């Protein structure tokens, strides 16, 4: 390992521009003639549109045009789609209702776009947007997913009776029922997973540019996956042919999943640019972000876990209702199914599992993947259940988990996943040692003396990253392959550019990807540039989500590097009249092993391009590309232990200690990994303690600003104690598993387990607000 290589704490290359205000975000982009868009949005959660009159708005100062959904439809722009087909257990396909980029007949949530105003300035566009008269006939609305399934409720889409999108199952229901009947003990629980607003620091934005000369479109957008955006907009939305559409996702200030999807605004701004003949930029304000960014989670579940007399789990039965909001967002169907039910075995050897999932339309913003996507829901359900079972069975939470850990690999679960490697007991032991578990009783007694109730809780999570083997996900309904692509271009004097289809929006790829190259070639990290986020520069890509960039994106880079190395060795061997199998690359020099003959890297590169003296038949140049399709998911896992103090008089919870012991496989940059874990835990604590989207019964969003939606802040969080004990992933060239979501996946149950331990009442839902904790503590007394 060199100073810049794999395993080194290299400071992030990108931070110079981020910390000095030199980042270039979509809203920073400006092109000649550019105008500004504001969307007219529905104030109703559910209504039919009787008419739209934009006459007055069009006459207002600075207004270029006002366009609505009827024009969009007439121009043949397609519906937004969900890209993962799920079939109900009766064999019928999911019921995808039409989502128009601009609603033409019906609006289905507050914030649904109905028209776009293009004007010389944002202020003029906003003034005109207020002057657009939309004649709504309000309809009754439903926001609660359980209620939406009942008879007699407002119906959102004609395709979906009782608002049911699909009724899906996984696993052997009969085997589970038999085990439940024969069980020595059954733990039953009702689980709510609260609805979250993603809140990336940078709000969404897009700039659509139509070039009439070339009939070409350019879309700047806040995307985690520009190539996917291009694919979807060309193949499904009929915005432009793929070869006439360039998508650029420049610096992106956080995504957490919410910037995976292609939203109406990108489509409409591109179309509006063609209609108006001017480039059209739209930037979301924070209120719009709350109203329209895809939300996360929102599950209601019941769970039954069966145990034998030896406290071994014999079966798990889960019934879940998942709120999808008003429309099916791009990956909304796979989140509560294949990213959720497949993880219900957790770290445990469970012989039989059955999950039934019903997804539901409601008059709320669409719900899709949010940091963790399905896996936090599975982990929360499972780890709350394990903790509850341990309490009911009179066992320590660690003992019950140890009794049930999977200990040999590979391990086939009853819910599709085949775990390749792991050592769950190692993480548990590391976390318990770091948390001084054995000293807890003394700390609790000390807190009691101060009038505080102290509690401790753990969570042993597993998740699946490295999305995903294309053939496998294809067989499960995915509309795309989930490979990644990379190109390594060695410049004429040996500096390197890596084109990757992964997209960095906070993860530090410009550093970690460069570390991989530096490690392989022994070159200084500053001679390596990582290029991403532009479909004209980067050959192909599937983007960044599901903690896939390391396991899939970097593996593609590693494959391309193999090819570069092989060709470099050929050239060097020829230059030194040696056999290519004797060439080794060390510290930026190609050497003939066992001799003092060597060629510096830059000289070999120059030789590749001068092409004066290449091996016969070898093409000039040194640029190689690769596609990598993973062989399996990766399975990061770990143990989190949280300690809290509850003020019994107010119910206020203070997180006094948080320990994370993770297994991420090999680590490229420990500093960046720790940063990912810190951020993830902060989000998990946010979910468990503070965050929660609330709609009123009429479908108005009550938490539409930071006055009402509580985000975690520094003083809500303790200093985290993080460590890793790693088992390399056997299924990719780097042995990495992924670390981007673990913190958000593993932490919420640890926290709720700790609070319920402190107050002696297991009935508590997230977010565990002070009032809820106070009321639960009162009820326990």
């Amino acid at each position: 390992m060199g100073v810049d290589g794999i395993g080194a704490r290299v400071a992030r290359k990108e931070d110079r521009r981020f910390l000095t205000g030199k980042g270039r975000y979509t809203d920073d982009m400006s092109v000649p003639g550019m105008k500004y868009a504001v969307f007219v949005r529905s104030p109703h959660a559910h209504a039919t549109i009787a008419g739209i009159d934009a006459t007055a708005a069009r006459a207002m100062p600075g207004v270029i045009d006002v366009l609505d959904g009827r024009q969009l439809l007439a121009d043949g722009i397609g519906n937004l789609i969900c890209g993962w087909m799920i079939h109900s257990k009766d064999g019928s396909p999911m019921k995808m209702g039409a989502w128009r980029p601009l609603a033409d007949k019906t609006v289905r949530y507050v914030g649904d776009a109905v028209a776009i105003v293009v004007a010389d300035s944002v202020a003029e566009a906003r003034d005109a947007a207020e002057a657009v008269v939309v004649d709504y006939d309000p309809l009754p609305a439903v926001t609660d997913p359980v209620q939406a399934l009942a008879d007699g409720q407002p119906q959102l889409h004609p395709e979906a009776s009782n608002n049911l999108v699909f009724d899906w199952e996984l696993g052997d229901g009969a085997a589970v029922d038999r085990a439940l009947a024969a069980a020595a003990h059954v733990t039953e629980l009702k689980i709510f997973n609260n609805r979250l607003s993603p809140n990336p620091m940078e709000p969404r934005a897009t700039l659509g540019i139509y070039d009439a000369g070339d009939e070409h479109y350019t879309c700047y957008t806040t995307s985690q996956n520009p190539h996917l955006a291009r694919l979807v907009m060309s193949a499904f939305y009929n915005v432009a042919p793929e070869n006439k559409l360039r998508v650029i996702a420049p610096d992106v200030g956080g995504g957490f999943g919410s910037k995976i999807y292609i939203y109406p605004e990108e489509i409409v701004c591109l179309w509006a640019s063609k209609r108006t003949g001017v480039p059209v930029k739209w930037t979301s304000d924070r209120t719009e972000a709350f109203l329209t960014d895809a939300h996360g989670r929102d599950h209601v579940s019941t769970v039954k876990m069966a145990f034998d007399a030896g406290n071994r789990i014999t079966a798990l039965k889960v019934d879940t209702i998942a709120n999808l909001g008003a429309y099916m967002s791009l990956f909304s169907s796979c989140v509560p199914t294949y990213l959720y039910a497949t993880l219900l075995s957790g770290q445990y050897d469970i012989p039989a599992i059955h999950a039934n999932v019903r997804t539901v339309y409601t008059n709320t913003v669409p719900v899709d993947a949010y940091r963790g996507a399905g896996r936090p829901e599975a982990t929360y359900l499972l780890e709350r259940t394990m903790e509850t079972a341990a309490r009911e069975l009179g066992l320590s939470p660690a003992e019950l988990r140890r009794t049930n850990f999977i200990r040999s690999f590979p391990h086939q679960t009853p819910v599709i996943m085949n775990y390749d490697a792991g050592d769950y007991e190692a993480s548990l032991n590391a976390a318990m040692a770091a948390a001084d578990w054995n000293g807890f009783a003394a700390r609790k007694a000390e807190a009691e003396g101060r009038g505080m109730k102290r509690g401790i809780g753990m969570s042993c999570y597993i998740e699946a990253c490295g999305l995903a083997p294309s053939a496998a996900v294809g067989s499960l309904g995915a509309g795309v392959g989930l490979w990644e692509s990379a190109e390594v271009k060695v410049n004429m004097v040996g500096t390197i550019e890596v084109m990757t289809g992964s997209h960095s929006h906070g993860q530090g790829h410009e550093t970690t990807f460069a570390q991989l190259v530096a490690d392989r070639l022994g070159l200084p990290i500053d001679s390596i540039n990582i290029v991403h986020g532009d479909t004209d520069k980067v050959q192909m890509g599937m983007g960044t989500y599901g903690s896939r960039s390391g396991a899939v994106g970097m593996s593609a880079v590693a494959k391309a590097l193999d090819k570069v190395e092989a060709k470099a060795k050929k050239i060097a061997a020829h230059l030194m009249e040696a056999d290519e199998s004797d060439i080794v690359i060390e510290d930026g020099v190609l050497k003939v092993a066992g001799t003092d003959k060597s060629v510096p890297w830059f000289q070999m590169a120059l030789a590749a391009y001068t092409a004066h003296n290449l091996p016969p038949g070898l093409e000039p140049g040194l640029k190689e590309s690769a596609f990598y399709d993973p062989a399996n998911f990766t399975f990061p896992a770990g143990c989190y232990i949280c300690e809290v103090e509850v003020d019994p008089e107010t119910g206020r919870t203070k997180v006094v200690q948080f320990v994370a012991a993770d297994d991420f496989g090999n680590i490229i940059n420990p500093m960046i990994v720790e940063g990912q874990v810190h951020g993830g835990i902060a989000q998990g604590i946010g979910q468990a303690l503070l965050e929660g989207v609330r709609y009123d019964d009429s479908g108005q969003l009550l938490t539409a600003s930071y006055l009402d939606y509580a985000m975690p802040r520094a003083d809500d969080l303790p200093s985290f104690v993080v460590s890793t004990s790693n088992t390399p992933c056997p299924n990719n060239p780097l042995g990495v598993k992924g670390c981007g979501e673990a913190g958000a996946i593993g932490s919420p149950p640890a926290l709720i387990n700790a609070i319920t331990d402190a107050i002696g009442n297991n009935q508590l839902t997230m977010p565990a607000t002070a009032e809820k904790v106070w009321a639960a503590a009162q009820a326990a007394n």
Partner: protein
Amino acid sequence: MYQTNYHRAASIQEAVQMMGAATEGKYLSGGMTLIPTMRLRLAAPSDLVDLRRIAELKGIAVDGRSVRIGAATTHEEVATSSALRAICPSICGLAGHIGDPAVRHMGTIGGSIANNDPAADYPAAMLALDAVIVTDRREIKAAAFFTGLFETALEEGEIITAVRFDAPAKAAYQKFPNPASRYAMAGVFVARRDNGDVRVGVTGAGSSGVFRHPGLEAALSANWSPDAVANVTVDASDLLTDLHASAAYRANLVRVMTKRAVAAA
């Protein structure tokens, strides 16, 4: 934000004139409430008359135990005033926990009181300190000044110039913050005079804004100790239920914050 005209007044008189000339004007102080409201297009004043450069509205004067704080004095200036801290540290502590540093360096006591947000901190202190709100045309007792949610006794064009009060023997403020906004979910300011007079000002909890709590005042007048609060019932029926907390929980918080304030005073 809708278009507006900005004016900067150099004196109180000029400010009043500017306001008189405007069709629908608003005074601007720290702008920490007014500007965000305008940006959300929830307020659309034709004219803004900026009060922050008026010398008479600035500064803190302490004379013995009597205090005068100019309306345009920022929260930060109140929080860090050593003269004030020497005789009434509770008001400094209150100001030092309003919002964040940026808000405290811009927001002013006059703006806060004129706005009378039902969860703002200063109004509770004004009631408990028996303060006098001084305007360009009269003096108004705090008890008569705060008239409802975002409502005050201020007339058309009237400017708050200062607040005055005498520092009590003992005082403290305890606030239970709303986790999102960090405004008070319930905030209690207690003050006790040498003559035994006790006032308890409560913010964040009332369904019609800031109020005094006679039950708590009576209990504490009889026995100035945290324990005295234990047997007082705080009636939840006049308290606020909203997205963040029920009236019953707020009633509990009022009691607990009062107890803690007395302990801290």
